[in-house]
């Protein structure tokens, strides 16, 4: 009978926490399974690559090379090598394909050169496999003896080094989107008193400032451990600090907006955890956008977290000027502004519900 009484209590309690249970038992597992639909393949499917034609290359040479690349990529034509290499560093494309002249000429040994970036270490093996396929396609399609060479630019990076900015991004996401709202919610009882002494906006601003500034401590720890392991990673560069700061700001603002909009209820923590999982799954953190499917690529490019991830990686692993990422940073700043507006609206909503 004890068991029956306790089970009855659980049933009644569940009814009272229906919102939380709907998120926990329905939305989260359903979302995880639905999310798998965008991960269709384990070889590149729709990775953007840049095609640069040499001066001697004909339209036919470009067309036949592009066709060979379409097996695993979406080719984009560039007028200059410099422009293509800039976009390589911005991860707008993941390879630069140099098309030589004479591919269609059967008496020529045509050599297509493909350039990738050392900084994107996990892509090395898949590229080699994909280029093998492309070489077979190309060789079978033209009369010449066509081959593909693979060059890499930038400092050589290990997979471990590559994962440092990814780890930083994952940490910042959990810290801003899950921990900070949890911390604020743990002080929910004092919020009423704080509102008699100050403004809710000031309370929230103090949290954003303090926990944002505290990220410097975390990044210093990352830098120290990286140095100890012998990694060559620019963890404390101005660009790294800037992009991590603005990423923290918009994620924390979204997390807090959700928390206030849901009346500081526990459900908000699960919603934020769900958002964090969605960000990890859809922001192309480890593989290029479009690697798993076109759909995954499209979703990634719509998310500000994708640009945060790319800019963090570039700031820490690539020797590129910050100006190269100016439009990404502008987009992230706009996202931060929009998130702060959303947070302000949720604070108004929270107060009006009283």
């Amino acid at each position, binding site marked *: 009978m004890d068991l029956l009484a306790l089970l009855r209590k659980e049933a009644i309690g569940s009814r009272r926490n229906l919102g939380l249970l709907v998120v926990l038992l329905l939305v989260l597992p359903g979302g995880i399974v639905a999310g798998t639909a965008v991960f269709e393949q384990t070889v590149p499917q729709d990775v953007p690559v840049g095609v640069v034609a040499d001066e001697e290359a004909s339209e036919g040479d470009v067309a036949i090379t592009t066709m060979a690349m379409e097996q695993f990529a979406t080719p984009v034509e560039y007028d200059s090598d410099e422009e293509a290499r800039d976009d390589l560093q911005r991860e707008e494309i993941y390879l630069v394909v140099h098309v030589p002249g004479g591919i269609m000429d059967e008496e020529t040994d045509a050599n297509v050169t493909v350039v990738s970036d050392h900084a994107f270490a996990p892509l090395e093996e898949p590229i080699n496999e994909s280029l093998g396929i492309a070489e077979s396609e190309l060789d079978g399609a033209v009369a010449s003896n066509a081959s593909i060479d693979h060059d890499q630019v930038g400092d050589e990076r290990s997979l471990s080094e590559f994962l440092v900015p990814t780890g930083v991004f994952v940490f910042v996401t959990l810290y801003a989107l899950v921990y900070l709202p949890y911390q604020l919610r*743990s*002080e929910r*009882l*004092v*919020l*009423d*008193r704080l*509102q*008699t*002494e*100050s403004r809710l906006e000031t309370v929230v601003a103090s949290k954003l400032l303090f926990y944002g500034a505290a990220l410097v401590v975390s990044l210093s720890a990352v830098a120290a451990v990286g140095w100890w392991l012998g990694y060559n990673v620019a963890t404390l560069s101005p660009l790294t600090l800037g992009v991590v700061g603005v990423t923290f700001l918009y994620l924390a603002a979204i997390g807090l907006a959700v928390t206030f909009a849901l009346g500081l209820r526990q459900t908000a923590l699960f919603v934020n955890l769900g958002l964090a999982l969605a960000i990890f799954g859809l922001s192309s953190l480890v593989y290029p956008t479009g690697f798993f499917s076109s759909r995954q690529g499209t979703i990634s490019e719509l998310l500000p977290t994708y640009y945060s991830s790319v800019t963090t990686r570039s700031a820490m692993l690539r020797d590129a000027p910050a100006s190269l990422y100016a439009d990404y940073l502008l987009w992230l700043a706009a996202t931060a502004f929009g998130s702060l507006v959303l947070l302000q609206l949720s604070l108004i909503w929270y107060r009006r519900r*009283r």
Partner: protein
Amino acid sequence: MPDSDTTNTNTDANTTTTTTMTDDADLALVDVTKRYGETTALETLSLEFRPGTFHGLIGPNGSGKTTLFAMLAGLTRPTSGRIERSSATTVGYSFQEPRFYPSLTVRENLEIFRGFADDPPPASWLETLLEELRLEPAADRRADELSGGFRKKLDLGLALIKRPQYLLLDEPLADVDDYSRRRIRAFLDDYCEGDRTVVVSTHNVAAFADALDRLTVVVDGDLRYDGAPEDDVVSQYRSLLE
């Protein structure tokens, strides 16, 4: 002490209360109604709080006392009517359910909230509160580890830490031991001197019966009485409820 010329009384719950505001009241409600959806917490209520008085806001559970306090403290807005509160007026609020930083000690909580004041009282005031509220034994303990009585006393200390002009106390003696009650009562009596106002909201009129300068009775959101208390406040309250 109450000014009988300007006291607004409404001894009949069915009659309309007319209020004449006095110049010396820095805190007042004027024709305030507060609704939560279909529920009316307060209905067209006008009330003023005068300097230097010990003001009892009495009523049974659910009569709208806490809602009234929340409006005076600026935590919620009236559905209609207005709150009059001059910008220089300082208000301290002790909540029915204590509100403090759970992970800070008693002393840290008091220090933090003292820091909110534009013109904070001297640091010795904090020590006075620790002593008068009998919080000293718990001064360095985390607030979330305190017993119910200490929690209530900490909340009272936080309301007092700015030494506000108006002190709003919602059931301030709940869970507090008898000895501390006497100390706190005596302390609050002294606090009213120097034009400071203590407004106590309680359903336990007997606990403050002999201290009240002014009595306001609210029942089901309506103002049932507002004026000078009679000698036997408990009987007066009972008759107002009938």
